[in-house]
């Protein structure tokens, strides 16, 4: 098993000294500044490509009809699958979840699934017999720190962009329509949570940074991931151990996180609207119109 | 494998231990007699959230907790031949309700063993749990206790936790704890009748024990007949011809053979029903007053002694001049010859991991020592009787 390469002692010392004595980050960002966040959608519905600096994440949503769990007959199934492959960093192995992967998938689970962002009841087709199983696969293409925030953004973007096939129920017969028959419909979406991760440095965690890159993550002494939506609702907070941090500092982190989440939210809304405009050619009816371009042979 | 963890004893220590255990009578490192058990602390009913629970702490600090939990489960009707089942039994049902057959199924009991630091699909853990459940289910009587009516049964979950790190082979500890937990287990009293959906009495005090007590006031038993009890599994080992019970980790490290013997005790009433087979010996059992023991299972445990490092006899130890001046090929050949005999033949005072199996006679004696009247199983069961069950 290849071990994660550790930064050298000099690199660590340099980073810390710059941070604490000069108040400068290695890449020159402000302490509460994110790296440039970019989002592109794929040709298909439900594919979101997110890059945060050198961290790149692809999320793909898909849906299929299955049998609901016996103990929750009225709910659909919603799963988030995260896999860190050797593509992202050499120390990740397939089929052997590292701690990073477990924590990442738990965070996504708590942020998106348990906060009820997706209305799972709307996924039910026939109670106890048929339901949609919505699945988001998160692929980390490149790992340069702060996987959590990027992955969470990608998952939310992919789900909000996704359209599932339309269905109808007549006389007990369930019909699933192809995209050609009926325009696919978006998922029942309730709110959009985003993760904001603070990293702490110094003996008492007195320096707090947003969006730490890989190098900074190696040196940090603690971190807290706060998930919020733009209505100011906390969906999840996780400070899983590490050096203790003043409670007041955590409260400040939360309020800064709220402004960041509002920025994310606006950015995503804008991107979705842009993409919808690009796709909107008037729908199926427009295609049938005679004004369409004809291929003149 | 849990029995063969590393024993940190030198070959010299092993040889000494083996020698002292081979004496007649054997001298054990802690001065016990061959059949003597280590002292233990036991309590039951420690977890009010369970149907029955027990905790045992051995003198060496190993500790186990067992919780029994029961849930009502719908009995699956067999899909084998439904048409036959229904047509044949539907009309029977009406008049046969009183004496319908109480049947059990081994799936009604689920046992899990947790050993800290070991995965639950580790070979050793699986072996332990197979051994414990094998003994419990061997006579087919146990699952019948879980029968409620034709449509429902209790599903019994037995969770066996070893709290301490596995210092010695945990089998006897886990088995004794399970025994006590099952003895202390109670199921709510059934209020409904026949095959209707089961309804239970809320009064926990009225709940009957899974294994009914023999001499409770108000019970119809005229004589204090020995009641059925859950099985106990005992660890027995042999060094030479000496048979030693409840071996500690160090003793097990020099064992020639180790056996796990499961012994159950059935009440005389159930014996008479199960052993309608006229075995000649059964006639005596009916008469006896003591424990009505039954042999349920025997398994060989791979003794960790096979993995111990061997000592090197002086003859082949170069530090003692064994190889000095061995230059010509003649001598070398001789040396090899010597080495070979050294490898196969025991040298007094030099430890060698046991090879091969055990003589049948020794094995038979081991089992007999457990089972004989006034033997170790009798003693253990008597001692467990002394544990206060609340």
């Amino acid at each position, binding site marked *: 098993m290849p071990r994660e390469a550790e930064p050298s002692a000099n690199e660590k010392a340099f980073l810390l000294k710059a941070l604490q004595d000069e108040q400068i980050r290695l890449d020159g960002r402000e302490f509460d500044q994110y790296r440039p966040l970019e989002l592109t959608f794929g040709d298909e519905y439900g594919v979101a490509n997110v890059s945060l600096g050198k961290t790149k994440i692809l999320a793909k949503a898909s849906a299929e009809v299955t049998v609901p769990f016996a103990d929750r007959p009225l709910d659909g199934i919603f799963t988030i699958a995260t896999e860190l492959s050797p593509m992202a960093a050499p120390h990740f192995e397939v089929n052997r979840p590292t701690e990073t992967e477990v924590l990442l998938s738990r965070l996504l689970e708590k942020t998106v699934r348990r906060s009820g962002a997706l209305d799972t009841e709307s996924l039910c087709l026939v109670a106890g017999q048929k339901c949609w199983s919505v699945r988001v696969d998160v692929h980390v293409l490149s790992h340069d720190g702060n996987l959590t925030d990027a992955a969470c953004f990608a998952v939310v973007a992919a789900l909000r962009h996704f359209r599932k096939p339309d269905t109808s129920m007549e006389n007990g017969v369930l019909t699933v329509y192809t995209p050609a028959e009926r325009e696919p419909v978006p998922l029942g979406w309730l709110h959009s949570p985003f993760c904001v991760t603070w990293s702490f440095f110094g003996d008492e965690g007195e320096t707090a940074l947003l969006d730490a890159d890989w190098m900074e993550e190696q040196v940090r002494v603690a971190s807290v991931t706060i998930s919020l939506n733009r209505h100011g609702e906390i969906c999840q907070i996780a400070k899983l151990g590490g050096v203790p941090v003043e409670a007041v500092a955590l409260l400040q982190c939360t309020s800064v996180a709220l402004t960041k989440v509002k920025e994310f939210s606006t950015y995503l809304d804008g991107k979705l609207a842009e993409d919808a405009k690009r796709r909107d050619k008037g729908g199926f009816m427009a295609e049938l119109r005679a004004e369409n371009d004809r291929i003149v042979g | 494998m849990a029995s063969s963890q590393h024993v940190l004893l030198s070959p010299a220590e092993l040889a000494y231990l083996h020698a002292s255990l081979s004496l007649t009578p054997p001298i054990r490192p802690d001065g016990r007699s061959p059949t003597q058990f280590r002292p233990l602390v036991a309590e039951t009913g420690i977890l009010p959230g369970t149907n029955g629970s027990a905790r045992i702490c051995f003198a060496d600090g190993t500790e186990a907790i067992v919780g029994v939990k029961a849930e009502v489960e719908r009995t699956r009707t067999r899909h084998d031949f439904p048409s036959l089942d229904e047509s044949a039994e539907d009309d029977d049902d009406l008049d046969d309700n009183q004496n319908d057959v109480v049947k059990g199924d081994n799936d009604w009991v689920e046992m899990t063993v947790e050993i800290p630091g070991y995965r639950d699909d580790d070979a050793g853990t699986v072996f332990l749990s197979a051994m414990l459940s094998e003994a419990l289910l061997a006579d087919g009587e146990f699952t019948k206790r879980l029968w409620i009516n034709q449509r429902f049964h209790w599903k019994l979950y037995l969770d066996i936790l070893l709290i301490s790190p596995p210092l010695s082979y945990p089998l006897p500890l886990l088995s004794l704890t399970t025994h006590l937990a099952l003895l202390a287990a109670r199921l709510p009293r059934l209020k409904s009748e026949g095959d209707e959906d089961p309804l239970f009495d809320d009064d926990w005090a009225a709940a009957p024990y899974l294994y009914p007590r023999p001499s409770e006031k108000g019970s119809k038993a005229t004589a204090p007949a020995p009641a059925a009890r859950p099985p106990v599994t005992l660890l027995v080992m042999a060094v030479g011809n000496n048979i030693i019970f409840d071996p500690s980790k160090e003793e097990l490290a020099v064992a020639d053979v180790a056996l796990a013997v499961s012994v159950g005790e059935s009440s005389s009433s159930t014996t008479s029903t199960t052993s309608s087979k006229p075995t000649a*010996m059964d006639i005596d059992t009916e008469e006896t007053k003591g424990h009505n023991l039954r042999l349920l299972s025997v398994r*060989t445990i791979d003794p960790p002694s096979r993995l111990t490092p061997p000592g090197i006899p002086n003859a082949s130890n170069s530090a003692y001049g064994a190889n000095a001046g061995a230059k010509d090929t003649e001598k070398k050949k001789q040396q090899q010859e010597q080495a070979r005999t050294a490898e196969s033949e025991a040298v007094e005072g030099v430890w060698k991991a046991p090879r091969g199996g*055990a003589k049948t006679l020794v094995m038979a004696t081991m089992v007999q020592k457990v089972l004989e009247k006034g033997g170790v199983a009798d003693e253990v069961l008597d001692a467990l009787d002394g544990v206060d069950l609340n």
Partner: protein
Amino acid sequence: MADRRRINGPVGTTNPPIYDDAPEKQSEGVKVARSRPANVIRRMYLKTGVTPSASGSAYLEIESSGNGGSGLKLSCSVHGPRALPRSTPFSPHIILSTHVKFAPFATKQRRGYIRDPIERDLGTHLETALRGSIIADRWPKSGVDIIISIVEGEQDRETSKAQGIEAWDTMNALSGCITVASAALADAGIDCVDTVAGGVAALVQDAGDDAAPSIVVDPIPSEHEKVLAACCIAYLPTRQEVTNLWFKGDLPASDMDVYTQLIEKGIQASKSANRVLVDCLNETVG
């Protein structure tokens, strides 16, 4: 644990069709009773060197009961002795690792690809049986893998799982595993003190309630009304030693004689199997 490495079938269940005539046949109660004498084991076929890529291998087949059921077919391959991975701590002995796996199609109930507790349990028994026979200190710092696949587990088509005889079948499987692994070890040229072979004996109750229980070797559970107790023994004939003993059943403690007889019969069965084993090995050498 979910099997994530393979594509699994769709969720949800379907009941298999049940044909009406099947129960008729069952209700007639046609049961093939045991035709062999009580102390004779079934015929078996053993061949070594079946897997060229392994250092040693063997194949064992035990004829079917003639009850429309299947026999036992086992294949064993031995890899090693070979160096242990560098991370393993020093061991003065060879480290055995045994894997017993039923093929998914070996029994009536489909077995998954991940080993279940029964298979792991069989592996432990096998390890105990073999470790007694191997001269382990001739290969310090090395390991050997013994892999057995049960290609066909013996099972009668007519008997259902409900009869609870599966537990006895595993004993027969274990005895086959021991014999075939012993042959494969010999084929691999790993030094043993003796060839170990497995044998099963059972205390059975035949049809008719008043018949006294009798002891038979190499029992086929479906041939008998009820199996009261059984034991599987791994025996080294020249040293007259037992390396593994597995007894299971329900015997009154006063019945020590029956227990002893059962063990003796088990040894007898093991000796018979050993004869086949030795013949097979002689054939290969000669």
